[in-house]
């Protein structure tokens, strides 16, 4: 019994590859905040969404399948959340401790455990009965049908019969044979046929003296343990199967519950959310309205600035402009949207159209790591070289102030050579840079789109990123005035 919500049946074996350098992606693009919002305290949702986000799908068809299921979930949020809650309740079952050391207790626990799982299955059937006609997507329709087909009334009746018979571990029927030295062996727990008490009532019996017969009582206890061990194992095994089923269902639903949570939160903040359109991998066109940094919006808990873009036939985007002008934010918003779009998630924008990319890579400026043996430029080059080992034509690379750990002249030269080689070999590059010499090297190139952080006449920043070529003017003076002169400190 399987649900196919994340991948079409038959496709689940060939998951898309996991992203290169996932830790860097998560921290540079601030993905944890998004995942945290999707998951709340639920680790299953976090893991499922993280896994989806870091496995960008490579076909429009696969992305559409998930988008269709997601749309269905958005139409039926209550039923989806209800099924998730039912499956998630499996967590509470681990309080039923199963171990070989106290077998009688374990036996009773296993019975209780199976009872609980049966109740969960009944709840699922109830949702399926009630909601089957509301769902329209292939994924959810198949799931509902499967639940109704497998969880029949007859199934529940059989389970109930067993559980009722095993209520009392002190009242059991067991068969055994004789082994070496005529010692009893092969203990097998038996069911009690109807009316068995009449037959057993008059057979000869021996009573243990509870006052003096501690050893005798101990012997009875051991016999009982031998009798129930096989049954306890089987019940434990069954419980494990059930746990696996609910975990599967939970992780299939988790991604969609996460999407519902995120969408709810963003709408509450008054931020737009859309299902993106994906173009084939060979496209060089991008277009969006109101694209914003989802994690920034979540951090601030208020609306943030979005950006628009229409670009056709571009493979290099160079973003320049004032410090604190929203450049890194812009880069993050794009990286997030690309990954979210390619896993079938909604995107933080009014609309978002982008080509499928073979992978998203980040090369962000890093703090000097505290191993002193390697310098910062060397660290940047090492990281870039590793990225070059993993990316190829069709990849998207986001560079944030790359090669700024050396002086501007050298940094520009290295950055220019690297960037030129990348775009010429089919890699799409977004590069935020302060390296003026580098930035101006591509002026006049028709495949390069220049963008600039807007700055109004009064020195105020709007955090808008607009088409525009690099300006040489520096903004350090602004900050110097604000931080030193206006505070009455001389420097």
């Amino acid at each position, binding site marked *: 019994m399987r649900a196919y919500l994340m991948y079409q049946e038959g496709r689940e074996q060939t998951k898309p590859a996991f992203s290169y350098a996932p830790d860097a992606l998560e921290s540079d693009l*601030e993905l944890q905040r998004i995942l945290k919002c999707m998951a709340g305290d639920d680790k299953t949702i976090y893991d499922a969404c993280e896994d989806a986000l870091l496995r960008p799908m490579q076909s429009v068809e696969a992305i559409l399948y998930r988008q269709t299921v997601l749309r269905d979930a958005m139409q039926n949020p209550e039923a989806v959340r209800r099924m998730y809650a039912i499956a998630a309740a499996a967590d509470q079952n681990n309080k039923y401790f199963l171990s070989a050391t106290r077998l009688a207790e374990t036996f009773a626990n296993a019975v209780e455990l199976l009872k609980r799982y049966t109740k969960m299955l009944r709840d699922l059937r109830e949702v399926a009965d009630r909601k089957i006609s509301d769902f329209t997507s292939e994924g959810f329709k198949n799931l509902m049908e499967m639940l109704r087909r497998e969880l029949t009334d007859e199934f529940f009746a059989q389970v109930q019969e067993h559980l009722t018979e095993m209520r009392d571990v002190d009242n059991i029927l067991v068969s055994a044979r004789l082994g070496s030295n005529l010692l009893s062996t092969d203990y097998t727990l038996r069911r009690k046929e109807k009316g068995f008490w009449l037959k057993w009532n008059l057979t000869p019996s021996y009573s243990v003296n509870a006052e003096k017969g501690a050893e005798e009582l101990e012997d009875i206890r051991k016999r009982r343990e031998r009798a129930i061990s096989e049954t306890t194992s089987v019940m434990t095994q069954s419980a494990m199967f059930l746990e696996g089923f609910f975990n599967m269902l939970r992780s299939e639903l988790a991604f969609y519950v996460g999407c519902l949570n995120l969408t709810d939160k963003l709408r509450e903040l008054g931020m737009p959310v859309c299902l993106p359109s994906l173009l084939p991998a060979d496209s060089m066109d991008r277009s969006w309205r109101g694209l914003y940094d989802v*994690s*920034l919006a979540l*951090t601030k808990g208020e609306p943030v600035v979005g950006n628009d873009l229409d670009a056709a036939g571009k493979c290099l985007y160079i973003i320049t402009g004032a*410090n*604190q002008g929203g450049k*890194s934010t812009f880069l993050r918003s794009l990286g997030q949207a690309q990954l979210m779009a390619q896993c079938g998630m909604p995107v933080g924008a009014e609309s978002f159209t982008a080509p499928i990319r073979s992978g998203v890579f980040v090369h962000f*400026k*890093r*703090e*000097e790591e505290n191993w*002193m043996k*390697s*310098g*910062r*430029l*060397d660290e940047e*080059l*090492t990281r*870039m*070289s590793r990225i*070059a*080992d993993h990316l*190829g*034509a069709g990849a998207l690379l986001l560079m944030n*102030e790359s090669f*700024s*750990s*050396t*002086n*501007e*002249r*050298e*940094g520009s*030269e*290295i950055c220019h*050579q*690297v960037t*030129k*080689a*990348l775009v*010429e*070999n*089919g*890699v799409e590059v977004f590069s935020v840079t*302060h390296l*003026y010499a580098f930035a101006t090297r591509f002026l006049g190139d028709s495949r390069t789109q220049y963008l600039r952080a807007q700055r109004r006449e009064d020195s105020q920043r709007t955090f808008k990123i607009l088409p525009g070529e690099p300006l*040489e003017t*520096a*903004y*350090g*003076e602004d*900050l*110097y005035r604000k*931080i*030193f002169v206006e*505070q009455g*400190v*001389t*420097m």
Partner: protein
Amino acid sequence: MFYSILYPRREQHEQPRLETEPDYFGDLNLDQIFQPILTEEKGFGLKEKKTVGLESFFYTPLQDIEAITYRQEVMRELEDENLRAVFNGFAYTVYGIQMFVGMVHDALTSLQRWRDNYITRGQLLDCVERYIAAVDGLCAALAGMNLRSDGLKGFAGYLKDYAASDAFTAMRSRAKKLREQLSTVEYCMLIKHGVIRVRRYEGQADRAKDILAIFSKFSQGQTRDFKFHVTDESRDMRMEAIVLNMVAAYYKDIFADLDKFCEKYYNFIDETVSRFAREIQFYLSWLDYIAPLRQNGLQFCYPTIKNDARALYCRAGFDLALAYRTRGEPGAIVPNDFELNAPERILVITGPNQGGKTTFARAFGQMHHLASLGLCVPGREAALYLFDTILTHFEREEDINTLNGKLQDDLVRLRELLVRATSRSIVIINEIFVSTTLTDALTLGTRMMDALAAKNVIAVVVTFLDELATHGPETVSMMTTVDPEDPARRLFKIIRKPPDGLAYAMFLSSKHGLTYEQLSGRLKKK
């Protein structure tokens, strides 16, 4: 009268000390340097703070040349391995006794009444005996030695008087007598179901011996010796105490003596001895820490501490955190010199990246802090400045939480630094203004140099801006050097030299296969 091995006078010891790391510790990797001294491995990669509590002494720079000299002399004397072994053993023993006494005191004052019992009292007697042995042992060891430093001489004199005092002598003889009495006690237990009964031992025969005697004649010469192994550790202390209590009823006098002894010697450790045992570890742990580095040829020296900055220098200094991490392997560490002769006050370090600039700056700060603690410092010889504080500015990662730009953060931190700096301060600035344009960096960098010169601080500035190295008469330009045969190879030697504007970034780039031609080739192969 001797008070502390770390300060010549009691008042100095009572001055408040820093209980947390000074701000510059992280930037200068001083936290890494002291970590092995202040923490210990707890297995599974876990580290835990040592309970000896020396942190504040390693955190607090001394402001007084006399106190620094007092420590330098003690440490010089402790360079003698035999002497060090004597004090090491003593400190370790006293520390162990104190830990144990702490537990005994806990038990004797516990709200769980049963823990105040004869077992616990017996433990206290044990501690007293070990303490007496340690004091007597150290006295004997020091008797034949000719100590030179004020600190150690002072302590040896104190200890001799203490060990001969009436109070100590009385304690010694009472402990001895009590132990003799306790060794005469002998008793029997009868255990039935959950019942144990106790009596004096009355000459009953050894059952195991008797049984063995009865059955040994059946032996066929088997050599296998069969025995169940039962460990002592799972012993129930509560039951143990109950039994001993029953025993005590038969030996009332002896146990009354034990009670009296414990009352009298509840606190038996002399405060000055205890303080010494703790504080001597300041020196011992440092000498232990640098020992493997010295074995590999790295030099340490006792610097002259200068009240003025007219002539400061260090020969063959090095970054101790780096040295410790590379275990001082020959060739791993390149020692460097510096010299500041008035009016020079600021070292500006430029040159190719990865040439050891940051390491040099850290080493400069480290040796000053270490010298101010009275420790021996990396280097062959040195004259260092008696500073009031060290102020550092190292790069930090942008944090979305602050919603603050990098440049703004740089400037705000620089302002705080300049506000705090005095002419007695040491300032270390590592790569500032890298996130802005060249024009911005130059304007702001020059202003910063003006401010540092005006404040009259002693400073090290690591920068890619060659212009800062020729700022004025107070600046000394130093550069990293490269191998002329192979410019991509760093020598990690930093020398006085005007900036040459040449850096070697492209060599590095080619080393990583990232020039245009190399990278194009790599991508085409896919």
